[in-house]
């Protein structure tokens, strides 16, 4: 059977956009959580929470879309990767439970506010770290037999994946700091700019470290980047990253409120692109390409019909909600 239209590229694009939106959106509110324990002042803490309270739930929904999107478009990849990262997923889910509930609980359960504050900060950090471990495990690859993961549930914890875990924490913290620059004023904003610069240094070290380490983990990635003429075509990725890093540093220091966030998104985009270049066209590294892992044509078509209408609708009302809560966060629009 030859399909009339190959939907795999479309689903690849939708999934790529969905995962990126998750990383960008939940990235900043998890990042705010990572930074939370470094904010001492109680009033600032409330402002920081209020700046993400109306939007974090919608942001986290992209995680479900990412997970279920993988399940729909490339089910065998879902069935191999998710059991392979059993414990990072478990830790992520439990961490997300704690940090998600802390929004309501720290406000209502004031006797245990310190507990829930830690739940928010550590939960956010652990969720970010776990996602980084998943990324590292993906880069390393999995033991696969046929259509199943056959390694151990602890294979995913290696020095490399721990390093990617820490890297993502730093990256999310950068996004969080940039978000706070948009949403706050005065001393808190100055603090966010300083924190953002520290996070930027850590993020750049992480990007550099993972970029050097990844080709060492996998020779095929090394040849993709360093063989002739690829090295010429792909050189703009690291060059742009370096240029953007310099821009980000200066704009964090004294640029307009919105540009650090844009610059951080740019750094994430380039890193994301780098990972995509390393693995294209594999979805389970070394075992399944996107085409091989794709679900049935009918499945992809059935979901695509609705998605083409629903995804733009979601984009519109999400953007509208951000518009409603635009501007500097105000103390009176927080918890009730």
């Amino acid at each position: 059977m030859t399909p009339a239209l190959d939907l795999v590229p479309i689903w690849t694009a939708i999934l790529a956009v969905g995962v990126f939106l998750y990383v960008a959106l939940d990235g900043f509110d998890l990042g705010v959580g990572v930074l939370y324990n470094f904010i001492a002042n109680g009033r600032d803490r409330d402002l920081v929470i209020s700046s993400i309270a109306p939007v974090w739930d919608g942001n986290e929904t992209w995680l479900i879309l990412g997970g279920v999107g993988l399940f729909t478009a490339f089910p065998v990849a879902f069935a191999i990767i998710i059991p392979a990262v059993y414990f990072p997923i478990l830790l992520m889910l439990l961490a997300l439970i704690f940090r998600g509930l802390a929004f309501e609980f720290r406000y209502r359960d004031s006797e245990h506010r310190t507990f829930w504050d830690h739940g928010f900060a550590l939960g956010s950090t652990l969720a970010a770290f776990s996602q980084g471990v998943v990324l590292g495990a993906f880069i390393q690859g999995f033991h696969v037999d046929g259509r199943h993961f056959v390694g151990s549930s602890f294979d995913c914890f290696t020095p490399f994946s721990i390093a990617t875990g820490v890297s993502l924490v730093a990256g999310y913290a950068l996004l969080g700091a940039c978000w706070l620059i948009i949403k706050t004023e005065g001393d808190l904003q100055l603090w966010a700019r300083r924190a953002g610069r520290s996070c930027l240094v850590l993020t750049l070290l992480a990007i550099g470290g993972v970029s050097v380490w990844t080709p060492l983990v996998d020779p095929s990635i090394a040849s993709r980047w360093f063989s002739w003429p690829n090295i010429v075509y792909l050189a703009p990725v690291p060059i742009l990253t370096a240029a953007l890093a310099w821009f980000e540093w200066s704009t964090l220091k004294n640029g307009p409120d919105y540009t650090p966030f844009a610059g951080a998104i740019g750094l994430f985009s380039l890193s994301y692109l780098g990972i995509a270049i390393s693995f294209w066209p594999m979805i389970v590294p070394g075992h399944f390409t996107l085409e091989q892992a794709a679900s049935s044509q009918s499945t992809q078509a059935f979901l695509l019909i609705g998605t083409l209408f629903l995804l733009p609708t979601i984009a519109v009302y999400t953007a509208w909600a951000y518009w409603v809560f635009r501007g500097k966060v105000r103390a009176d629009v927080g918890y009730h």
Partner: protein
Amino acid sequence: MHLDPVLLSRIQFGWVIGWHILLPAFTVGLASFIAFLEGAYALTKRPVFLSLSKFWLGIFAISFGMGVVTGIVMPFQFGTNWSRFADGAANIISPLLAYEGLTAFFLEATFLGILLFGRSLVPPAMHFLAALLVAVGTLFSSFWILSTNSWMQTPAGYQINNGLFYPTDWWQVVFNPSFPYRLTHTVTAFYVTTAFVVLGVGAYTLRRGRAVAEGRTMIRLALFFLLITVPWQMIVGDLHGRNTLEYQPAKLAAIEGLWDGGRGVAASIIGWPDQAKEKNLDEIAIPGLGSLYLTHSWDGAVKGLKDFPPDQRPPVVVVYFSFRIMVGVAMLMLTTVIVGLVLLWKRRLDDSSWYLRLCQLSPCLGFIAVIAGWITTEVGRQPWTIYGLLRTDQSVSPSLTGSDVLLSLCLYVAVYLVIYPVGLSMMLKRVWTGPTADAPAEPIQAGRHKGPIEALPAAETGGAS
């Protein structure tokens, strides 16, 4: 001791979904109730509706938040613990789950933000629309997830190639044979559950004598709503049972505790089903009645458990008793509603302290019935994940060891045992404070209103704006 990853994964799935289902059981109905209150306030401008809406919104925020974070756990379970099922069934069930996210989760999450934090930022009509969209979102969510569950119970519109399921007809997949019944039965159950919570909280509020108008309104709204929905639920339950008789006869036989099938079968009222001896011990049964209510005919044919090989029978005791608990609770519900309406008719409702006290226990009823009903349908479809086609023990992730799952199960147990008591205590605290505690004297106008700065520590509120 041998740790079985299949059994432990089943316990883990039961644990995480059992706790999760309590929240939609409450929030699906509550979202609609809040939309109703917001609409009623917009139409009548009676302050009682606004203070009730704000009161329930506070409770909704807690329960919905818990529903979201425990719900995110669920789709990942398919991958972490049930990857062989996920691989086999993905072509069919994955788009249904994706449609749940696309039609429901974003809608609920985004407009809940507006509903909770946007009252002073958007016009009243938009705020009401947000309430309505959250309610609609919860119903969309119910639609897709119950379609998925129903397809696993009564698969249709598929073919199997090399052990993988492929769709042949999406209409048949989505509207599979048990779906209309399960959807109606479950959503009605959720509405009934919420109404009994409202009844109980109304009774408590009235008895405390602080927010009398709110308490009276809650009790009356709940009783009139339940007058229709409880009998309706019994009719729907009967129809759902007949659907099960047709499509999942082994489950129905376990519900009935019926070992020997045939015509004119007895109705087992109570007894102890013994799976090994293949009979019920100490049984009270009414001859002929079983066929009557199952097939609506005195000599209707019903299959018994012995018509199925022993390895295709569900654990009978669990299914038999959970069903009887559900039906027993339904009888209690009906009695509660009838007594309440009789008292109302005689104008003695608000003074009948004994009845109001009893009503304070009624919030438990719906949750017990929902869990019992869920156990009936989910244990009753064992040993299958996809009924008659894929066995549960063939569905688990091959890489998992028993100790892996034991470890994750322990962590889920520990975390849920922290968050559920805390969440419940916070909701109870809100109930204890009562509806009028933080309701403003005058309605809030549209525009940039400066509200009470409750989120800030008292000492520092002076300088904030």
